[in-house]
C-alpha cells in the first residue's frame, strides 16, 4: 500500500504554488470590473487550486479542507447571492437595477453591484467546478479497483 498522492517533489512544489494560485484567483475576481477576467475566470482558477491539491495529495486530503456538503452549500449560496443582488435592485424599483454608488471609474471600489455579482459568480463557478471534479474522481475509483483485480 503506497502513500496517497504523488511523489515528494510534487507535494513540496504544490505546497508552495497552491496558495499563489488561490491568491491569483482572488485577484482576478476582485478586479473583474476593471481588468479582463471576473467571477467566472477567477472561480475557475480557485477551483483549479483545489483540484491541484486533489492531484498532489489525493482526494481525502483535499476533502478534509472542503468537504462535499460544504461545496454543495457554497454553490447554492453563490446562486442565491446573485439572485439576492438582482432582487436588491427592486429597492430602486427595477429588477437588476445597480443601486450602489458607482464610485470613480477604473478604481477598485467602483461600479456598484458588479463586484458583488462577480463574487457570487465566483462562489457558484468555483464550487460547481470543484464538485464536478470530485464527482468524476469518485466515479473513477471503482473502475480502478476493477482493473487492479485483473
Amino acid at each position, binding site marked *: 500500500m503506497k502513500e496517497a498522492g504523488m511523489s515528494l517533489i510534487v507535494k513540496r512544489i504544490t505546497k508552495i504554488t497552491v496558495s499563489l494560485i488561490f491568491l491569483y484567483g482572488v485577484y482576478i475576481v476582485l478586479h473583474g470590473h476593471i481588468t479582463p477576467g471576473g467571477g467566472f475566470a477567477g472561480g475557475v482558477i480557485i477551483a483549479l487550486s483545489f483540484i491541484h491539491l486533489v492531484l498532489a495529495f489525493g482526494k481525502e486530503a483535499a476533502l478534509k479542507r472542503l468537504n462535499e*456538503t460544504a461545496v*454543495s*452549500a457554497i*454553490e*447554492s*449560496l453563490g*446562486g*442565491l447571492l446573485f*439572485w439576492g443582488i*438582482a*432582487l436588491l*435592485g427592486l429597492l*430602486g*424599483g*427595477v*429588477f*437588476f*437595477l*445597480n443601486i450602489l454608488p458607482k464610485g470613480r471609474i477604473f478604481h477598485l471600489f467602483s461600479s456598484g453591484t458588479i463586484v458583488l455579482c462577480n463574487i457570487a459568480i465566483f462562489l457558484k463557478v468555483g464550487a460547481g467546478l470543484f464538485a464536478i471534479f470530485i464527482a468524476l474522481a469518485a466515479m473513477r475509483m471503482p473502475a480502478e479497483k476493477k482493473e487492479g483485480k485483473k
Partner: protein
Amino acid sequence: MLPIFVIIPLGCAFLIPIASKWRKGSAQILANLAGGLLLLFSIKSIFWLKTGIKLYYLGGWKPPFGIAMALDGMTVLMLIVVNLIGCLALVYSIDYIKRYTSPALYYTLFSLLLAGLNGVVVSADLFNLFVFLEITSIASYALVAFGTEAEELEASFKYLVLGSVASILILLAIGMLLGSVSTLNMADISRSLAASSSSSKDIILYCTALFIMGFGLKTALVPFHAWLPDAHPAAPAPMSAMLSGVVIKTIGVYALCRVVFNILGFTQMISSIFIWLGIISMLVGVLLAIGQWDFKRLLAYHSISQIGYVIFGIGLGTPLGIMGGLFHLFNHSLFKSLLFLNAGSVEYSTGTRQLEKLGGLSKQMPVTSATSLIASLSIAGIPPFCGFWSKLVIIIAAFQANNIAGGVVCVLVGIITLASFLKIQKYVFIRKVEEAMAGVKEAPLYMLFSMAVLAVLCVAAGLLFLPFMDTIIKPASDALLEGLNYAGLILGT
C-alpha cells in the same frame, strides 16, 4: 412585474439544496409553494393584458441596449400552459417521487426547468431566449436521466446529443442575425431587417432554415423526432407530463412561432413548409404509435402526431387556422399531461408499463381509469371534450384555405388516434384478467388530485370553449397575426 415568473422558480431552485440540508421535507414544500404562486401570477397576467402589451426593462436599461421582457397575448397563453401543468405536476410529485432516492435534487431541477420555461416565454430578447432555452434543455436532460438505470441514461444521452445539435443550429442563426443587424432585441432585429437592403433577404432565408431545423428538433417534428420516443417514456411520470405537455411546446412551437411570425416574417414558403411538416408529423406519429406496447412510448408517439396538428393549423396562416392550432396546443397540454400522469399512476401501482401485462384495472383504480377515459376521448376528438373543438376548428380552417388533402388527413389521423386509445382502454382498464392484477391499489391522494383537476379542465375547456377562445386564444392568435408590426408595438412609434 414580469420578472416575477423567473425570480420565483430561480430563487426556489437555489434555496432547495440549502434548505433540504436541515429539513428533509422542505424541498417539496418550497417547490409546491413556488408552483402555486406561479399559477396565481399567470392567471393574474390575463388581467394585466387588458391594458395592452406590458414591457419590463431589466436594470432600467431601455432596448436596444438593455434586456427587455414583454407580455402579449401569446405570452399569456404560454404562461398559463407552463404554470398550470407545472403546478399540477409538482402536486403529483409529492407522492410519486417517494420512489426515488433524492427528492431535493428532483425539486431543484424541476424549479430550474420552470424558471427556464417561464424565461423563454417572457423574454423579448433573442439571446436571452436562447439562454433560458438552454436552462430548460439542460434541466430536462438531467430529469430524463433521473432514474439512472440503463434505459434512462441511454435516452438522456440521445436527447442530449440531438438537443445540443438543435441548440447549436439556433445559436448559429442568432449569430448570423447579430452579425447582420448588430442587435439582439427581437423587435429591433425585425425593424432593422425590414429597413435594410435586399442583401438581407438571403440572410433571412438562411436563418429561417436554421431556426426551423433547430426549433424543429426541439419540437420533435417528424424528420427530427428520433429522440422523443426514448426520452419521454424514460423520465419520471410528472416530468414526462412536463416534457410532452409543456417543454416541446414552449422551446419548440412557441419559440418557432415567435421567431418566424414576429421577427423574420411569415411568408408563403414558410406556410407550406409548416403545412407539410405538420401533415408528415401527424401521419408518421400516429402510424408509429398504433403498434407500440409500452404505455408511455405509445403516448410519446402521439405527442409527435398531435404537435403535427398544432403546426399544421398555425401553418395555414389564416386567423381561424392559427386559433385552432393554438387552442389545440392548449388542449394537448391538458390531455397529454393527464395521460402521462395516468400512465405514471398505473406504473406506480402495478410496477409495469407493458400493455400485455396489464388488465382489468377499472375496478381497482376507478379514478385513474375514469380520468384516463376522459383524456382518451379528448385526444381522439370526441364531442364535447376539448380535443374535439380544436380539431374541428383546424379542419374547418383547412377546408376554408382550400387545403382539402390536409383536412382529410386530419380526420383520418383522428380516427387512427381513437383506435390506438381504444387499445389502451381495453388492455389496461377494461379486459378481464385472471388474478394477475389482484391486490393492486389505487394511487395515493395527491396523484389522484392532480389527475382529477386535469380531467375537470378537459371537460370544462370543451364545454366552455367559446368564452375560453375569446379570453385567451384570441389575444394569442392576434399577437401572431400582428406579424412584423410587433416591432412597432414593442418599441413604440
